[in-house]
């Protein structure tokens, strides 16, 4: 019928193939427990990096508080599952809603700030969220929240990730996404083109926060316990680095960034100090030699090699 739909269909088929292969590997126990866990973590980190990319990469609003929204989702989901025995899907949806609402409420005043000031404000807000959680005994305080059922399996993580990718990809390819990118490129010109910049900034922030909440909920149900110290601003840095490494404004890039960093981090987990030093050097080298990230703002589907197979109306 048309190119868009055909591309969607192709993406779905590829995703299913990937899923079946990985699921087969998992159910035949070809991967040990460590890697089984890491595959789930990769899916979760992809959700986090892609949703942060919507805020930082596409809309150009420098947020450093992503881990805070992840924490909100994680704790919301855990409370619903443990204390209210809700089905997992309800926990996931509620995590989205709660994180999105708080994200929106935080976004409204802070989106007036820009650049460094926004970065530091969101960093502070993320920390406040974490400290508040740490002081609520109902969720275990500083000791952490224990006894969370292990609902997250590979299938859940994978299909939720797929949904988020689908959502954000289509979002950025609509007038909503174009408004975001226009704000990133030149806020004054965007406003002059009739884009209500406040609205779209807050909307991107809300959606990004919501999906971080979803990732948090998946994360909480991967382990038996969650702990406020998993959601410090250093975690936010980590997601930011995935986005920057992959390329701001590229979904493919965020996927690659999350995949590479999670894998490398898993591979080097026996040498923690060395791992972080190497990591730091790679980061600095990246900024020197490829500051736009691995993919820049290009998607894999628009690489010249692949373009030939697409029936688009490219000239």
């Amino acid at each position, binding site marked *: 019928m048309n190119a*868009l*739909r055909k591309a969607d269909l192709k993406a779905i088929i590829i995703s299913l193939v990937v899923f079946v292969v990985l699921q087969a590997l998992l159910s035949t126990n070809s991967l040990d427990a460590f890697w089984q866990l890491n595959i789930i973590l990769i899916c979760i980190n992809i959700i986090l990096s892609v949703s942060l990319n919507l805020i930082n990469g596409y809309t150009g609003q420098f947020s450093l508080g992503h881990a805070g929204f992840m924490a909100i989702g994680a704790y919301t989901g855990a409370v619903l599952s443990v204390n209210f025995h809700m089905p997992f899907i309800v926990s996931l949806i509620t995590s989205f809603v709660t994180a999105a609402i708080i994200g929106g409420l935080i976004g409204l005043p802070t989106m007036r700030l820009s650049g460094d000031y926004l970065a530091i404000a969101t960093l502070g807000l993320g920390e406040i969220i974490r400290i508040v959680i740490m002081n609520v005994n109902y969720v275990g305080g500083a000791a952490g929240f224990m006894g969370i059922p292990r609902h997250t399996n590979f299938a859940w993580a994978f299909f939720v990730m797929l949904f988020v990718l689908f959502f954000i990809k289509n979002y950025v390819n609509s007038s909503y996404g174009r408004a975001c990118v226009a704000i990133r490129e030149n806020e004054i*010109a965007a*406003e002059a*083109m009739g884009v209500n910049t406040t609205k779209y900034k807050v909307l991107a922030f809300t959606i990004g926060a919501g999906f971080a909440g979803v990732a948090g909920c998946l994360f909480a149900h991967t382990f038996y316990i969650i702990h406020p110290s998993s959601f410090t601003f250093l975690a936010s840095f980590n997601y930011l680095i995935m986005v920057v490494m992959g390329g701001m404004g590229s979904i493919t890039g965020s996927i690659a960034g999350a995949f590479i960093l999670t894998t490398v981090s898993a591979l080097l987990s026996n040498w923690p100090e060395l791992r972080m030093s190497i990591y730091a050097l790679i980061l600095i080298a990246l900024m020197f030699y490829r500051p736009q990230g691995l993919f820049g703002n290009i998607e894999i589907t628009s690489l010249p090699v692949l373009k030939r197979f697409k029936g688009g109306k490219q000239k």
Partner: protein
Amino acid sequence: MSVLLEAKNVSKMFGGLKAVSNFNMTIDKGELVGLIGPNGAGKTTAFNLFTGVYQPTTGIISLDGQSLAGMKPSQITQRGIARTFQNIRLFSELTVLDNVKIAYHTHLNYNLIEAVLRVGRYMKQEREIEDNGRELLKIFKLEDKAGEIAKNLPYGAQRRLEIARALATRPQLLLLDEPAAGMNPQETKELMDMIRWIRKDFALSILLIEHDMSLVMGICERIYVLEYGSIIAQGIPDEIKKNPEVIRAYLGGEA
């Protein structure tokens, strides 16, 4: 002829400084008006007041009889004023076509769900703006550059794209801030033809700030001259050229 834009006794203070004072101006429907004056006279400030970037300290600006007071720039664009910028402000990392597509923003009305699921109105409207955008680019001789990144265009083409983008918002009034700045004489000449032609074909009014006097004198029907934030003269080009106040403002006193 009916008045499209009217500025009545508009003043703008920055701190204690009067950037624009007692500014009066009318633009009729279909008119092509110039705004000139030495550096720092307050011309761009006037544009920023018309487009809602600044709010006037005193005075009223109205479009089609409706006051624009308190409106954000995006709302004013929706009312029908579009502009270009003195120092080009394209969405420089995006393609030429996407630059224009963004400008159709206010004419799209599908909702978030439709966008994410890509159904109904989304598909129809996206196709429309794609076609309209390419159509518009053709008019500005940019159709073969649709897929290029805006910042890679030659300078003159960037200026044209900025005008095309402004027109995509479907304005009644187009404000051009130094459209010929940085252009060579040949490009300037083509630009003059284009401005005349846009005005006629898109049936709109144009107000332009320009330093290139050959351009201003060549195409404007009426000219306002601004100095130190106040209008010191207005009239048809031939009057302006001979006006001793204007000559003094430009060449300085003390001959």
